[in-house]
């Protein structure tokens, strides 16, 4: 069933009886060609592209809870392609281009809004680094613009430029960056995949892998054994626990990232702003709440909640650049489980076990990658070759010394 304004008119006038479930609730079949573990943004996107672009059939997505209940429903909704390294930037720019057509593609309004992202800078060294990055973006076909403090102040007049401990010296802007309604992404992909025959199996937790002679033939779940010619894991922060069932240790740690929303306010913030001398970034949702966040708490956690010091740190950062924020109220805080990798960049690769594939290590940047991650993972699953933008996202890069380290922090996940 296609969604449109006309449809709404028709249904509204006939008592809304025609709306159907956005996706089916099928029983798992005994076998599939593709089993995707994880009903979050990436898993659902993978299933969608596998069915739509690569015309595959017999696909199942297995989700241990309800789809979209993990990081895709908890993030701060930012999309951008302002990465530095050649291993990353083409991928994220590919993702941004997919975002730009997504709503029409999967017929669901995800409120993709490219009102721009601005990274503030506060020192000469930071300016040099931002110039290098802005150039990398342009050389890779993305958009970037360097803004002066005066230009920035025009768009954000309430920015603190008079009484700043770390004065704003300019900023790197990506006008095509912006925000998206995160839940709608999961639902849009789910509906699109389901309508193309993908079975979305909720409340189905993978409890083990069926592996014989170095080949994976399927999974054991709380709803029975399911055979699969290709089994693909896309479970983000739960990656280590899931892949441990296949005897694998991963180059990652699971960390809590907190996020925050304020009470709904009339519009104040036109785009996304990040503070360059503290841990704070902020945007305003279409419902009026200021959505903001900062740094990791810094310790391994699966608890999906964090502690006070980060809350204070984030609000201090907010007040440092937007002193008018003081009168706004924090409404709710929550946390997700971040799959922090050893170089801050993801892995989309086969494993050493035939038929077992892996997608994870997104750190706290997985949301913007959702379309490209799904597309690239589907490409890998369907063709057994990496997508051209994802060739560097291999497991063996750590052993070989080919890390993709944007921040230059090395093998310490909590610093990425």
């Amino acid at each position, binding site marked *: 069933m296609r969604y449109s304004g006309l449809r709404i008119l028709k249904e509204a006038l006939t008592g809304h009886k025609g709306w159907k479930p956005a996706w089916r609730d099928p029983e798992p079949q005994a076998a599939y060609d593709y089993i995707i573990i994880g009903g979050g943004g990436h898993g659902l996107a993978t299933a969608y592209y596998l069915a739509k672009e690569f015309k595959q059939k017999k696909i199942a997505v297995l989700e241990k809870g309800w789809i979209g209940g993990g990081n895709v429903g908890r993030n701060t909704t930012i999309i951008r392609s302002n990465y530095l390294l050649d291993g990353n930037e083409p991928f994220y720019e590919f993702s941004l281009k997919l975002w730009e057509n997504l709503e029409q593609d999967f017929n669901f309004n995800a409120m993709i809004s490219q009102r721009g992202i601005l990274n503030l800078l506060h020192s000469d060294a930071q300016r040099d680094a931002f110039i290098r990055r802005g150039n990398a973006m342009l050389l890779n076909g993305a958009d970037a613009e360097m803004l002066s403090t005066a230009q920035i102040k025009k768009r954000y007049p309430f920015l603190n430029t008079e009484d700043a401990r770390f004065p704003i010296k300019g900023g790197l802007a990506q006008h095509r960056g912006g925000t998206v309604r995160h839940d709608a992404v999961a639902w849009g992909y789910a509906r699109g995949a389901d309508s193309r025959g993908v079975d979305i199996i909720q409340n189905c937790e993978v409890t083990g892998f069926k592996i014989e002679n170095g080949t994976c033939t399927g999974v054991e779940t709380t709803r029975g054994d399911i055979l699969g010619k290709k089994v693909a894991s896309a479970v983000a922060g739960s990656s280590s*626990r899931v892949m441990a069932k296949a005897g694998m240790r991963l180059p*990652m*740690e699971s960390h809590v990232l907190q996020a925050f929303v304020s009470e709904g306010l009339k519009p104040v913030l036109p785009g996304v702003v990040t503070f360059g001398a503290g841990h704070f970034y902020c945007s305003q949702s279409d419902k009026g709440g200021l959505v903001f966040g900062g740094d990791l708490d810094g*310790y391994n*956690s699966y608890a999906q909640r964090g*502690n006070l010091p980060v809350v204070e740190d984030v609000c201090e950062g907010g007040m440092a650049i937007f002193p008018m924020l003081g009168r706004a109220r924090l409404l709710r805080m929550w946390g997700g489980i971040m799959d922090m990798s050893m170089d801050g960049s993801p892995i989309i690769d086969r494993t050493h076990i035939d038929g077992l594939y892996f997608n994870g290590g997104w750190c706290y940047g997985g949301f913007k990658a959702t379309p490209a991650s799904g597309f690239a993972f589907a490409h890998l699953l369907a063709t057994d070759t990496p997508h051209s933008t994802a060739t560097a996202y291999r497991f063996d890069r750590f052993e070989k010394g080919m890390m993709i380290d944007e921040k230059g922090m090395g*093998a310490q996940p*909590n610093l990425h």
Partner: protein
Amino acid sequence: MIINHPLLGPRDAAEFTYLGDAKLIERPDWTSKTAASEFYEYQYLRDNPAGLHRELWFHEAGDRSWLVVTRDTTTHEITSVELARDVARSKGRSK
């Protein structure tokens, strides 16, 4: 969180910085024939358990000792705190 420092008693975790898995104490022998792969695994692969985790914390704003904390990563409950040098010695590390 509160970390019960073996010498100083309970301290707020904000006085510390976190490194990661305490297995980082078990640095491989550079003369080993398989040193390259041992160092790779040591540096990059992690158990990352959902449950009890032995991890390294540095008392940066305090006495600058490294501690091995045993903490449940699903509840954040801390069950033991030891001086890292004691753990290191117990693993046979010396000079």
